[in-house]
């Protein structure tokens, strides 16, 4: 018997011993796992908890593959945080309707990826399944396609209609009937862009000559009247952001220089109020000013939140900043100053009595959560597949 053969015998004996030992141990083990069904797909509750956010990764490096993540910010582990996703192709925008249980997304596709026939579509996602439940084909080559906006779509008349802002670069709004999922018509908004809810059944758009164009609609969705307000800013020398925080029926539009214009949207025509300065007088020497992409949002307590940066310069207005300032809008007063962990580019605030603040940190594209009472940092949410989360929304 050579050494190799001896070794094999020992191994065989060991195997037999182990097997018999294993059989005896099995008698002490719990019953085996039940056979599991295949093909099960999760769904979400009809009512999203306030801690849920929609994180829109526009896919800046692959725009045909944008994605929205539904994230539970109250959870502490990644598997608990990620509730699901849906795709939004070619830097679209989204809008949520709770009463209809739907999320609307403007999307663009080419028949062969980046080339071929173009299709622009309003996709209607089911909030519970995150699957398309319907769609409306939009006029080709018109829908607004750019940095994500909160008001490139507007829900009107108790969510009966949806206005989709166009920029081709001719500007207009395509009005969609959400009951029939048909286009009612297209309302030109010459020289003016986007759509902010106004009055009972209308919207306002922001114009190059520093005024609003307010559009009133008839009960059948046709155009009733359009009114241009007086100019209130100069788009060359004193530009404002096109991104307001809307509290009740007042839209707060920050200016690039650091003023905020309260605009009463309760009537048929936008009514611009007196602007006030976001920066306390004692701090103005530091040249603080707003900055960012989704730089402003509001909570249900009448406060708005805005990203600020010191040392503002020509060209810095979209770069974000190291702090978020919180204001009592009615009181025209700053109530909290939140120093971010690093930098903020975009923010959103959750609904409800105890809102939390989500800030996109562009240095690593993570999400940071902050307590809105104390300003304390809560946690970072990252590593869920996000690359360029340029816009975030509190769930409705």
């Amino acid at each position, binding site marked *: 018997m050579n050494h190799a053969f001896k070794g094999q015998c020992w191994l065989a004996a060991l195997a037999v011993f182990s097997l018999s030992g294993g059989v005896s141990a099995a008698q002490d083990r719990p019953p085996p796992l039940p056979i599991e069904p295949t093909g099960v797909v999760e769904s979400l509750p009809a009512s999203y908890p306030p801690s849920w956010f929609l994180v829109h990764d*526009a896919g*800046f*490096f*692959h*725009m*045909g593959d944008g994605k929205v993540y539904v994230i539970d910010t109250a959870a502490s582990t990644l598997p608990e945080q990620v509730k699901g996703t849906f795709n939004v192709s*070619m*830097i679209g925008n989204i809008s949520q309707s709770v009463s209809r249980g739907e999320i609307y997304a403007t999307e*663009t596709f*080419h028949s062969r*990826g*980046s*080339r*071929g026939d*173009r299709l622009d579509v309003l996709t209607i996602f089911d909030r519970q399944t995150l699957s398309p439940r319907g769609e409306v084909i939009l006029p080709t*080559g018109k829908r*607004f*396609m*750019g*940095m994500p906006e909160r008001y490139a779509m507007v829900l009107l008349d108790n969510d009966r209609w949806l206005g989709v802002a166009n*920029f*081709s*670069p001719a500007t207009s709004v395509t009005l969609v009937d959400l009951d029939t999922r048909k286009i009612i018509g297209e309302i030109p908004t010459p020289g*003016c*862009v*986007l759509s902010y809810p106004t009055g009972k059944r209308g919207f306002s758009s*922001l*114009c*190059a000559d520093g005024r609003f164009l307010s559009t009133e609609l008839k009960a059948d969705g046709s155009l009733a009247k359009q009114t241009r307000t007086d100019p209130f800013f100069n*788009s*060359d020398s004193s*530009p*404002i*952001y*096109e*991104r307001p925080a809307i509290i009740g029926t007042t839209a707060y539009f920050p200016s690039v220089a650091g003023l905020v214009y309260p605009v009463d949207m309760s009537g048929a025509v936008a009514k611009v109020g007196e602007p006030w300065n976001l920066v306390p007088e004692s701090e103005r020497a530091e040249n603080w000013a707003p900055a960012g*992409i989704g730089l402003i949002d509001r909570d249900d307590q009448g406060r708005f939140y805005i990203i600020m*940066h010191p*040392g503002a310069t*020509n*060209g*810095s*207005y*979209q*770069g*974000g900043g*190291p702090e978020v300032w919180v204001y009592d809008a009615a009181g025209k007063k700053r109530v909290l100053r939140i120093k971010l962990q*690093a*930098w903020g*580019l975009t923010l959103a605030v959750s609904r409800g009595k105890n809102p939390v603040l989500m800030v996109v940190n*562009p*240095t*690593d594209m993570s999400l940071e959560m902050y307590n809105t009472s104390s300003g304390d940092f809560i946690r970072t949410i990252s590593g869920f597949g996000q690359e*360029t989360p*340029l816009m975030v929304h509190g769930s409705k």
Partner: protein
Amino acid sequence: MKFLDKLFEQQTRQLAQRSSRRGMLKTLGGLLVGAGTIPLLPVARAAAEAPGHPVEEGDPGSCDYWRYCAIDGFLCSCCGGSENTCPPGTEMSPVTWIGTCRNPADGRNYVISYNDCCGKSSCGACLCQRDEGDRPPYRPDKTNDINWCLGTSSAAYHCSTAIVVGVAFEEK
């Protein structure tokens, strides 16, 4: 087109001045590759030109290049094109936004047209955001937040050029 350049170019500068380099810039380091810190070998065109000829200087592959003052997007110079041409197989958008940039070599202000090149997905190299004179989308002539692949056969944005289209009026 723009948005992210800020993260790469502009914020790098601001953060570098304001924060712990060890923490912040370490994380930024990975993102910075391909942004404004691409290898720059200044092209000294001015020196090569005879007197009496138009002059300019700088590296079109660098975000600091004078023509890019209002840009926000991927530099076509890094994508197979140049500061005034599109990469092979793309299509130049006929409509666009403009900026007014000062040419340091002759001290003149020029109107720069930032025509996007379209038809392929994002170039991904040399992301640059300067935004000087940029305005929100209610000023279409001055906004780089829009996907300017308008009037092209494909809406796919690839990169941005910076074409001299005129001498700007002198400010009085």
